[in-house]
């Protein structure tokens, strides 16, 4: 073989192909929804740890659709929290500062834990506000952003 150019490279056409491995997850989501409704118990599924083939994840997310809520959290890189078109089913996409995916979770819950104000940080809330109040000048420019 004379060089790389002599290797016939054919780009696979169907990036949307689904290998059928996402269907089982949808049934798991259905069970989780029933559990959420009857007992209030939330469920998280790590999609990053599943044996998906090319196209399976895209098929799953397309089927779940897009709901009304999309939030982005900036903490150790961006995390996007998207409610799907199925109420109570959320896609939480954790990325690092370079945009690489750390984990992709399907959360079946009323509100994903990472969106809530963290009780552990409430202990600093009053002190932070007090600091800002002490430097605030009524009618003046805003203090610290």
């Amino acid at each position, binding site marked *: 073989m004379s060089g790389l150019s002599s290797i016939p490279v054919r780009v696979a056409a169907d990036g949307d192909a689904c290998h059928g491995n996402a269907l089982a997850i949808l049934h798991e989501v259905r069970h989780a929804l029933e559990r959420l409704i009857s007992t209030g118990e939330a469920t998280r*599924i790590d999609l990053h*740890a*599943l044996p998906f083939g090319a196209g399976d994840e895209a098929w799953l997310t397309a089927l779940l659709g897009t709901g009304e809520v999309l939030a982005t959290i900036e*903490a*150790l890189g961006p995390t996007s929290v998207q409610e799907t078109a199925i109420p109570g089913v959320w896609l939480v996409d954790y990325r690092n500062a370079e945009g690489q995916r*750390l984990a992709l979770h399907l959360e079946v819950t009323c509100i994903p834990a990472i969106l809530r104000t963290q009780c552990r940080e409430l202990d600093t809330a009053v002190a932070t506000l007090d600091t800002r109040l002490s430097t605030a000048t009524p009618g003046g420019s805003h203090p610290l952003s």
Partner: protein
Amino acid sequence: MRVFEKNPLEKGLAERLREHGVSRRGFLKFCAATASMMALPPAMIPAIAAALERARRPSVIWLSFQECTGCTESLTRSHAPTVEDLILDLISLDYHHTLQAAAGEAAEAAREQAMRDNHGNYLLIVDGSLPGPDANPGYSTIAGVSNYAMLMEAVEGAAAVIAVGTCAAFGGLPAAAPNPTGAVSVMDLVKDRPVVNVSGCPPVPMVITGVLAHFLTFGRLPELDEYHRPLAFFGQSIHDRCYRRPFYDKGLFAETFDDAGARAGWCLYRLGCKGPSTYNACATMRWNSGTSWPIEAGHPCLGCAEPRFWDAGGFYVPLSVPTGPAQDYLLAAGALGAVVGGVVATSARGRVKAEAAVRQPVTVEELEQKL
């Protein structure tokens, strides 16, 4: 299993992260990434968070013997958390030839100092195999010290040893026939300390960091299989988690690398896939920041995480071809579906072990014929 001693004066990880301006949400995200990295279900995140609140920085000494640096290259390609986080915040990497700034006598002095200061508690990581006690020590030395002497001295004060890569775990390519350097694995030499084998040539980056994260989080080593590999990553075969498995179960196989079956993404068994007898996490953790993995790229698994994969015959020869009734084997899998497929995979594992013992190494001529 032994729980490692922690310095009560040292701050826990959560506190250290908070001091660095990392919010509680950032910490929870870190825990989610850590669970994923440790191959634990998300339901474990609260337990991981509770354990990481108290986690201390273990001292780590990393020795590299007869190796190609592929394992370190793999580690530095890890993306969750970034290796900088891991090395600087989570572990205290006190000695690593390739990554440390110091060289020569200063480097060796740093190793000796760390071994003294953390005697009995440090984690010893080894990549590469080493000439055994009966081999010529001159095949591999560091600062004039034989690999064997350096390993035994470092093991003395180690809490546990992690053998990273198939060379350290099982001998690897340096031990390939006729094994000119008398290479042996870490497990062949270390008998009085827990040894964890993180095999793979190289190991999946997230598996290396996952094992370290497990140690950091829970202060103890993970559960191991018969080859001392962590079950969380090596508990299931490539075949059991392969997305091409439905094709295997239906008996749909690619026969060459560019036929219609290959283009349709069918099973690579007949192209020599060792997935049924290989235990590793590639199928779910994937490579290159989770982008893809060898079988998804259209190449059969070579079995790189298994003992003696280097001398187990041609990479492109189907598992059952050398001695067994291959066609019956495949027909059974194809006709009876997933359940039988699983049984076949299990029997294939036993079979490959037996075959590995009698196979002749493949020659260049044979390889060229196959290609």
